């Protein structure tokens, strides 16, 4: 069984975000970039399924400029077999990303597509659901457990009230939540080996898709600042403040 995994290059989750003063975006120069953590979980899951003998080939995909090859090298070092970069310098929004992935699904005919549930930069949480809709496939979102069988895949989803268990007909789209697994560390031999694995580069315009932005970002602004608080000396003072000053408890 072949699996496609989508990976996005984003600002590393440990970086403190700074909004540019001209309100056009956030600072990205000299800033550490990494694979979106949820996508890392998706790659890890694909590799695990391969180690269990349930998956035969893992194809990692990224959409973006040349630097996304670094992200794909990480996926290859984790255990993906080959990679495809859809190269573009345009800003790709979720609907466009879903269309690109739909196109690759037609070409690669996988039984399963794994993606992170959201990218930690734009926080949209849309692409997987959109892809499933475009393909008219079953979808399992925010998944914390996967059991892959011959014609179905059982998933556990993290929902607002707890957990939901579904059985999805294959082919299916699955988006990953944090507790699905713990991505592995990269070993040096694997990093070296990944250098020899192929990355196919396809210019976006050769796919002949309408990927224009439907959402216009008018400006990016910093959040409102909270006023600075105080330190209290002990529990008694805390309770006193909460009762008399803040009046949030009685």
């Amino acid at each position: 069984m072949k699996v496609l995994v989508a990976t996005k290059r984003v600002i590393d989750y440990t970086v403190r975000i700074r909004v540019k003063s001209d309100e056009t975006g956030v600072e990205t120069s000299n800033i550490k970039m990494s694979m979106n953590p949820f996508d890392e979980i998706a790659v890890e899951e694909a590799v695990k399924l391969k180690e269990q003998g349930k998956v035969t080939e893992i194809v990692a995909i990224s959409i973006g400029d040349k630097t996304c090859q670094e992200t794909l090298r990480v996926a290859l070092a984790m255990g993906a077999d080959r990679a495809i970069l859809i190269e573009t310098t345009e800003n790709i929004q979720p609907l466009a990303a879903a269309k690109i992935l739909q196109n690759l699904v037609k070409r690669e005919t996988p039984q399963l597509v794994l993606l992170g549930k959201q990218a930690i930069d734009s926080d949209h949480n849309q692409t997987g659901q959109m892809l499933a809709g475009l393909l008219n496939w079953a979808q399992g979102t925010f998944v914390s457990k996967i059991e892959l069988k011959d014609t179905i895949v059982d998933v556990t989803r993290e929902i607002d009230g707890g957990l939901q268990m579904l059985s999805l007909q294959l082919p299916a789209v699955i988006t990953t939540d944090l507790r699905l697994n713990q991505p592995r560390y990269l070993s040096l031999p694997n990093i070296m080996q990944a250098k020899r694995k192929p990355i196919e580069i396809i210019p976006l315009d050769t796919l002949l898709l309408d990927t224009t932005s439907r959402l216009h970002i008018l400006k990016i602004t910093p959040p409102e600042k909270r006023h600075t608080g105080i330190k209290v000396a002990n529990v008694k003072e805390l309770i006193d403040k909460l009762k008399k000053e803040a009046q949030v408890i009685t």
Partner: protein
Amino acid sequence: MSILIIAEHDNQALKPCNWHTLTAAQQLTGDIDILVIGYQCEAVITSAQKLKKIRQVFVADAKAYEHQLPENTAQLIADLAKNYQYVLMAATTFGKNILPRTAALLESAIVTDITKIISTDTFLRPIYAGNAFATVQNKESIQFLTIRSTAFKAETASSTSLAPIKIIDTIILNILSKFINQILTISTRPELTNARIVISGGRGLKNAENFKIIEELADLLGGAVGASRAAVDAGFAPNDYQVGQTGKVVAPDLYIAIGISGAIQHLAGMKDSKIIVAINNDPDAPIFEIADYGLVEDLFTATSELLAELKK
């Protein structure tokens, strides 16, 4: 111009998030209809009819819609959506699951997790875990939107007359996915996203047994219990307690963070709380940067004193 809200419910009752979505809808211009998809959900339908300023309640009640899975419900919504300018859902795991798929079926973009309506087609939404905000203009002919509940007041007033019902009798079967089971956290406490007071615990609690201190405090104060990702991952608390960028977003009157360091991913879910209290023995913990009242102390000492004082 008209607006369609997709109701969120469990076949028994409407979820409180609908009241917030309704407030957002009222800030747009147009008549508001609501769609109830489910199975044997009479009580939900009646509550929907009583919501303020609802023109019409659409009802799709069939066994095929019992678990409201996206494979068929997204199609059902898409068919109805064509008559509307706006289609709204709450930005809950339910809304996030269904509405992007619906939008894609109509080849349309969607704006998720809106915290402010700026004009008829322009919205504010957080990005980078709330460390920046994007002002987004959506040019699509149907505006698909999900609404962050904490950013809009609840419209809980009910209407004196019942809105009329219109039955949708097309039944779309779901042959792609099957519901097996669900495990819901049963709690007598207020719902996390709606509670006036939230007490959250983090890794500092050290084990599940100690985490009960958080629950005891919450019960004394009539609050809900939250947790950091580290606390959930370590098994101190169930997954649906997680507050943060990738968990729940809360904005209570009082949020007490105990043994939580204050990672940006956690702050994303609680920094709009009115009053924030942090208890942590590390004076440099980032949680203190946003706390109104910070107490630098061992959490076990502080909480036992707190419990004793509150019991007085």
